[in-house]
């Protein structure tokens, strides 16, 4: 731990809030964890996709003759061979259907491809070698079609259509107050356009899985996924009942949203369905970078009005995002952009026009921060510029405008929990001390802060739910079952901690079974920073139910009032003394009291939104934070070195402070990669960065130690007052780095990634401004 914890709520906790080393980490460090690609069956087959080599074309010929003739090849499948050749994208997980998306794509393209890397054929072979040869021999002829490569150009009337019906996939509006009047009366107006890039999740584990049929004819898929509920989508493709498909999520080697949509699942399923044999599919890094959905690149035009005291009066915002070739979750990602566009500030007059457009670029979909994070660059740069023009301290102006409990967001939602934004600003500044001095004459040092808010939990009209089951074994140990996929954030372990806290069973006597659509209660997706809120609360509820069942049996046996009893390690303690836990469990059995309980937690409810956003609650709640960065800029080369980085968030309550710190530190570095390094370069629809040589994520030498400050208001909606922390810390880095550069050189980069060329451009603009 290289951080601090500031707690404003003290309660007696035995296991929760302890920085426990997790058992799943021990197994990963020992090298024994079997990830999705690590399981093999004797005699299993191998499958691989043949993908489009062009971004936009009609398929005039697909010939598998030569491929099928390769010794060891079992089958080469085309779209016509798929029972229902359609992937319907709806909001996955424990939700009901959503009208906003209505997105679909072919499982295997039959007549038209719309992006570089789109799947066309599925080759199944006995060996990896035969597979590699056969994939080269599938013949595809393309008749090129126009390439739509820019989302703004895509919205022009005369642009070629990527899909029938035009390129506008979705739009959202907010109209609050009187924007024009606010601008007319403003002391300062700031106007700027910000651009973010396509970003790849680049988890270390490429997409992988194994599928097999079991004795009851159930098709099993053990895959790297954030969503076991995709079993329903697979069943529809195969044309079998939902109950005949099972998805198992072993420990996942990183998700970040990239394993929220299906990846290998439909293809593995088709191969198993067709051959009746176990099949393994491993995507190469090239496939992962080429064809899996990316983070949306956004164009964000901000016009901001403030009065002479720095009070924000109005935002007039236009957003255009690049949806790529297929819809996936783009409509909802854009909704997040729209709702988060004004940041953690009170803004009475707001006009937002947001559009997302189809192009022939790689599809875009979920990625940590889900549309909310790009907006941090916009709203934080704008408030900085207001503070600079008015000569108000950047921390002071943020505090002056910070949301507080009872305020309403422009979308209409009321903030119902305490906002500790000001405390996070003070926390990073107190820790930072004095600004460092430059290391040489042609170096400049800059310091900045950036704050943000990010929702945790799903859109309330998705009717989200999660369930968890807890049972005592007769020896007093504990089994927890919950369908949560664990993608490395300690999702399963934290449920064990919650159960341990309430039922007073030591962690090493608890097993958490997770991520199995057939054998664990369905818990929904590990996305949207929702699992601690949803499955944490479900586990809490199950544990309380179970505890009260056991206490009730002891009360009945001993005649002590139930509310005088409490559960302690290995015993139930009351005014008349202690009853051993094992005796209590026997009492339950004798009295027909279950020694297990199912807890189901339902997320907050709300009304589905329409294009014109003017409602009430849209998210369960938000997490707030502030980051501080010191950077040194080389004025001759444009190189940026991050000298110091401090991140503070109010997490409500840290269930496991080490996991919280790890989430913050990892998200910050992922955000720093987006700020300075990463770019999925797509030229006329062709992806030019399909390898880790070209697509560069931060190494250990690119980033400093990330210092964290954890604030605990106890105000979150999760168990023990926890807020979600998985996504929130990824937003501020993309704003604080350009702000620190601006502090150093006098002008702000507005386009990501901030390459040395863009830094030198800022240096030139800065010296012109000061000349």
């Amino acid at each position, binding site marked *: *731990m*290289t951080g601090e914890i500031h707690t404003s709520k003290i309660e007696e906790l035995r296991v929760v809030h302890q*920085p426990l*080393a*997790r058992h*799943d*980490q*021990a197994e*990963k*460090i*020992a*090298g*024994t*964890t*079997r*990830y999705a*690609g*690590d399981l*093999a069956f004797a005699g299993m087959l191998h499958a691989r996709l043949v993908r489009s080599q062009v971004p936009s074309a009609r398929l005039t010929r697909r010939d598998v003759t030569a491929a099928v003739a390769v010794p060891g090849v079992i089958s080469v499948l085309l779209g016509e061979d798929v029972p229902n050749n359609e992937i319907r994208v709806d909001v996955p997980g424990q939700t009901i259907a959503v009208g906003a998306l209505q997105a679909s794509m072919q499982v295997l393209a039959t007549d038209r491809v719309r992006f570089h890397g789109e799947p066309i054929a599925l080759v199944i072979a006995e060996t*990896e*070698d035969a597979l590699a040869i056969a994939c080269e021999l599938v013949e595809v002829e393309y008749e090129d079609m126009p390439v739509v490569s820019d989302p703004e150009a895509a919205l022009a009337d005369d642009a070629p259509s990527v899909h029938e019906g035009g390129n506008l996939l979705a739009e959202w509006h907010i109209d609050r107050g009187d924007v024009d009047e606010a601008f007319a009366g403003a002391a300062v107006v700031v106007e700027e356009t910000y651009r973010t890039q396509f970003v790849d*999740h*680049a*988890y*270390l*584990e*490429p997409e992988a899985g194994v599928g097999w049929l079991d004795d009851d004819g159930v098709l099993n898929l053990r895959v790297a996924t954030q969503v076991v509920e995709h079993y329903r989508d697979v069943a529809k493709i195969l044309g079998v009942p939902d109950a005949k498909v099972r998805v198992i999520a072993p*420990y*996942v*080697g*990183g*998700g*970040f949203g990239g394993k929220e949509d299906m990846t290998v699942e439909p293809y593995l399923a088709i191969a198993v369905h067709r051959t009746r044999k176990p099949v393994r599919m*491993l995507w*190469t*890094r*090239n496939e992962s970078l080429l064809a899996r959905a990316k983070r949306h690149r956004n164009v964000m035009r901000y016009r901001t009005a403030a009065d002479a005291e720095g009070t924000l009066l109005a935002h007039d915002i236009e957003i255009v995002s690049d949806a790529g070739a297929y819809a996936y979750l783009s409509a909802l990602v854009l909704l997040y952009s729209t709702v988060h566009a004004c940041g953690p500030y009170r803004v009475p007059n707001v006009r937002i026009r947001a559009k997302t457009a189809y192009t022939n670029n790689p599809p875009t979909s979920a990625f940590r921060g889900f549309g909310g994070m790009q907006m941090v660059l916009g709203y934080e740069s704008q408030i900085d510029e207001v503070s600079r023009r008015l000569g108000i301290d950047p921390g002071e102006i943020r505090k002056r405008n910070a949301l507080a409990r009872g305020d309403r967001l422009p979308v209409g939602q009321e903030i119902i929990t305490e906002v500790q934004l000001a405390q996070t600003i003070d926390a990073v500044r107190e820790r930072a001390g004095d600004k460092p001095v430059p290391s040489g004459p042609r170096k400049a040092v800059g310091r900045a802060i950036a704050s943000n808010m990010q929702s945790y939990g799903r859109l309330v009209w998705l009717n989200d739910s999660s369930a968890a089951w807890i049972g005592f074994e007769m020896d007093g140990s504990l089994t927890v079952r919950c369908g949560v996929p664990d993608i*490395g*954030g*300690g999702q399963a372990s934290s449920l064990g901690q919650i159960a341990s806290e309430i039922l007073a069973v030591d962690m090493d006597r608890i097993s958490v079974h997770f991520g199995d659509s057939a054998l664990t209660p369905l818990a929904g997706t590990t996305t949207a920073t929702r699992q601690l809120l949803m499955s944490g609360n479900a586990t809490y509820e199950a544990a309380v139910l179970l505890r009260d069942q056991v206490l009730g049996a002891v009360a009945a046996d001993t005649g002590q009032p139930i509310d005088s009893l409490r559960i302690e390690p290995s015993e139930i303690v009351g005014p008349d003394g202690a009853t051993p836990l094992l005796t209590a469990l026997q009492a339950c059995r004798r009295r027909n009291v279950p020694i297990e309980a199912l807890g189901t937690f339902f997320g907050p409810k709300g009304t589905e939104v329409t294009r014109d956003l003017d409602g009430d609650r849209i998210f369960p709640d938000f997490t707030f934070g502030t980051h501080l960065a010191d950077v040194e800029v080389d004025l001759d080369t444009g190189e940026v070195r991050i000298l110091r980085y401090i991140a503070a968030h109010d997490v409500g309550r840290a269930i496991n402070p*080490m*996991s919280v*710190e*790890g989430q913050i*530190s*990892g*998200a*910050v*570095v*992922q955000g720093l990669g987006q700020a300075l390094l990463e770019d999925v370069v797509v030229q006329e629809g062709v992806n030019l960065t399909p*390898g*880790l*040589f070209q697509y560069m*994520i931060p*190494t*250990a*030498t690119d*980033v400093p*130690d*990330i210092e964290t400050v954890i604030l605990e208001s106890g105000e979150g909606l999760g168990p023990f007052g926890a807020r979600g922390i998985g996504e929130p810390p990824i937003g501020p880095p993309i704003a604080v780095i350009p702000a620190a550069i601006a502090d150093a050189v006098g002008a702000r980069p507005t386009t990501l990634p901030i390459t040395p060329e863009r830094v030198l451009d800022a240096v030139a603009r800065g010296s012109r401004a000061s000349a």
Partner: protein
Amino acid sequence: MTATDVTVTLTVNGAPTTRTTGGHVSLLRWLRDLADVTDPKYGCGEGVCGACTVLVDGEPASACIVLAAQVDGAAITTAAGLCEPDGSLGPLQRRFHEHHAAQCGFCTPGMLLCAHAMLRDATEPLSRADIREQLHGNLCRCTGYTDIVDAIEDAQAQGIAR
């Protein structure tokens, strides 16, 4: 067996292992698919990410860009080879565990071997910047590296290389 097949014998974490396969098969595939040694991971297939790092006769190598036939007869150490004989975590691994240096864990086996080699070979104390420099061939997307550097620094302070 075909004309291009070769028989390769490697001592993997102390266990002599012999397999016959195509001469083009990488050490990574040989270990994972033929010997069921799955702790070295495929992350990129071109020697960039470090997830497949193993020790070949004590020296770190990216197993995805080494042919098994090239290293016939070598001793191979994977992360599992850093465990105690009873399978429990070895001293370096325990530092990783205590410092929360693994999240998804996919980069961890490679990180451990890189850390082991740098601590073993250090002729003078490594600063945090030195540690970061030597880790730059092993990518991690979850931790932000801070906890990994902490673990290695702590191991160094306690005189642990393995």
